[in-house]
């Protein structure tokens, strides 16, 4: 079966008992057991739930993994992966990552004696020199957030493995519709399922997909022990969203590419960061690592710095001012004051997250409607609606 067909059918087999074409939603917290000391397939919903299991089956297929685990949020999934490390271990992470991951690594993992080093993972030599015997986990995001940098997953996997470390890839921006990191050698794929997987801005969730049973078992042990599992109603909504995942991601990516080209040709914009533009440093890598589109996130810089960016994000109408991304509704935000406010100001400067940066999450609306909105907001005479 091809990808889109698997989005619809894998993990959504007809219900054997009733024939229901959509599996029932199991809200049960606990399950009746056959006998004392004898356990059925499900015992307690933290340990496993049929509705969550269906979503995990779908995700494992889409990401070409041996299995998946669904979490209550993306950060719960990241946290579970970092708990593979112990005191004295080190995590080497990309510098272009979600602000919440940055915060977890620097403010929480450090309390357990796990250190983090940030490097620009677009620079493989820099990555290699950051790796040591202490490195247990390499964490990358590609396309990166918010700079849309493209990291070579295959090369990172080779480097990590040479140093006995695992490679985890946050695949939230690309989604398995465009990139499947496990096929490129990664060990773990992480998702904020809140974004493209769910796709409708109405369910929080996270996921880890593993490339080996041993790793999956270890992650499952941590998940079951710490308890940040996905609620079944949200698992149902995310499974429902995945049925249109490929259609949405391809359509949104195509709209994003055309918006990026229009912004790139526009004098009011000083720089456009989009991996589908030929001028982007990761263009060729993106073309080989992402199939069917370059993603639906576009960042750009406006002249005039913080105030100009702030004014722009407050002026658009169809692009709504909010953090998060990946849904049918287009969103706009200013990383310096919103999604990446958790970064230390010094790290933002060091890694190029400028005050004039604006990040777009391109939704499902028609291209001309979105362009009209951006064009109007970029015009100097336009002021914020009151």
């Amino acid at each position, binding site marked *: *079966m*091809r*990808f*889109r*067909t698997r989005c*619809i*059918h894998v993990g*959504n087999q*007809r219900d054997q008992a009733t*024939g229901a*074409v*959509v599996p029932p939603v199991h809200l049960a917290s606990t399950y009746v057991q056959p006998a004392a000391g004898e356990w059925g397939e499900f015992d307690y919903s933290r340990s496993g739930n049929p509705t969550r299991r269906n979503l995990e089956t779908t995700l494992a297929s889409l990401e070409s993994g041996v299995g998946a685990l669904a979490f209550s949020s993306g950060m719960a999934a990241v946290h579970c992966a970092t708990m593979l490390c112990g005191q004295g271990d080190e995590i080497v992470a990309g510098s272009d990552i979600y602000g919440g991951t940055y915060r977890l690594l620097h403010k929480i993992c450090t309390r357990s004696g796990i250190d983090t080093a940030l490097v620009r993972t677009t620079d493989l030599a820099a990555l290699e020199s950051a790796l040591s015997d202490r490195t247990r986990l390499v964490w990358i995001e590609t396309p990166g957030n918010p700079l849309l940098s493209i990291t070579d997953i295959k090369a990172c996997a080779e480097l990590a493995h040479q140093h006995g470390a695992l490679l985890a890839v946050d695949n939230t921006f690309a989604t398995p519709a465009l990139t499947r990191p496990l096929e490129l050698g990664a060990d773990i794929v992480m998702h904020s399922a809140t974004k493209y997987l769910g796709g*409708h*801005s*109405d369910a929080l969730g996270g996921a880890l997909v593993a490339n080996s049973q041993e790793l999956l078992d270890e992650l499952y042990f941590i998940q079951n022990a710490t308890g940040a599992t996905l609620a079944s109603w949200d698992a149902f*909504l995310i499974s*429902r969203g995945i*049925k*249109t995942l490929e*259609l*949405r991601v391809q*359509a949104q990516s195509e709209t994003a590419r055309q918006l990026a080209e*229009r912004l790139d*040709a*526009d004098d009011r914009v000083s720089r456009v960061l989009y991996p589908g533009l030929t001028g982007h440093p990761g263009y060729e890598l993106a073309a080989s690592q992402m199939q069917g589109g370059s993603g639906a996130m576009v960042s750009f810089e406006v002249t005039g710095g913080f105030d100009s960016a702030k004014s722009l994000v407050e002026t658009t*109408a*169809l692009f*709504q001012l*909010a953090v*998060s991304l990946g*849904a*049918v*509704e287009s*969103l706009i935000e200013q990383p310096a004051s919103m999604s990446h406010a958790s970064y230390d100001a010094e790290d933002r400067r060091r890694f190029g997250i400028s005050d004039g940066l604006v990040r777009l999450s391109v*939704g*499902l*609306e*028609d291209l*001309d*409607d979105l*362009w*009209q909105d951006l*064009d109007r907001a970029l015009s100097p005479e336009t002021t914020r609606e009151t």
Partner: protein
Amino acid sequence: MNHKRPTQPGPSTLSVHAGESRQKHANSITDPIFAASTYTFADSQSVIDYIEQKLPREEYGRYGNPGERVVEAKLASLDHGEEAILFSSGMAAISVLMMAKLNSGDEVVFFDECYHRSREFCNQHLSRFGVVTRQVPTGDYDALAAAINDKTRLLVSESPTNPHMSVVDLGQFVEVARTHGVETLIDATLATPFNLQPLDHGVDYVLHSATKYLAGHNDLLAGVIVGSTEKLEAVRYLRGIMGPICGAQNIYLLQRGLKTFALRMQRHNDNGMAVATFLEGHDRIETVYYPGLASHRDHTIAAETMSGFGGLVTFTVKDADWRQTADVVDGAGLARIAPSLGGVESLIEQPLVVSYYECTPEERIEYGIPDNMIRLACGIEDIEDLIADLNQALSK
């Protein structure tokens, strides 16, 4: 660079945003689900103000729900209508409309390929209240005009019809009605507002089983009628009395399904056309009923009035009896055997078995349901997978 500025938002923009407030409760990006059965008033004077001044607020769940208002506005916008009313199912929608519009002694005329349960409701139930139902051959506008008399109130058709995919010439249909001062209802479930705008042709009421393409995920039941506020006032009032409302959770799932409506319909149209073309070229196939094909009886009018032809494809298997036809259905691995249509999952059925099993062979001939007929409701799977599956089912 100069890019075209749209005057009307595009269909995908409407699917995502139409009917919704820009700023919602709690600044949430999505509308909340209002599970409440009733709505409180601050004091007795507020109740009196509500009754006397008809303040736009909720009172009791059977009369309306804030989430329902949003979905109704979105559906009205998609269908170019002034107002939409949501129901618990498509059949609830048409039956309330009929009960609201027809009095004892009134007559209604159907094109005979309309959904058999709609005709059954009129023939067997409204007849008990003295409403007379007449049927004429689908697409016979002379017979339609001849069936009208001074008691006729409503002309009803589906377009396209199910399973024959006949397409009504809405211009002629409306002209006949207007000449005689009669109202019109089109069940456009198979067309959807993405492919057809009956109200733009002068039709008075558009009906959809929202269970199908509008919701799109085979996971809720709902119905909707769209038309002018004035004409629908009695329908909304009667719904409030009879109570077949859409539940709050389903209202939300419908709104969520509508977000990808335009995107899904493009794919249903593409898959329907590709499957119909494949079947027409297959040597085991006798006839394909799909209005996008030049060979279809109504292709010309379909091409003029519709922007796409949907995902439903009906066909007959050459020289096959009912059992050999059932073998093709049973041989399908991807499409699942079930009634209904319009969801992301492809569904397949043999009309003889699923809908007409209890009819006599003579009745089936009368209804145009041969033993070797199969109805395939194409989902949005990859077209290569759908065709490969059909090909292997036909090779067994």
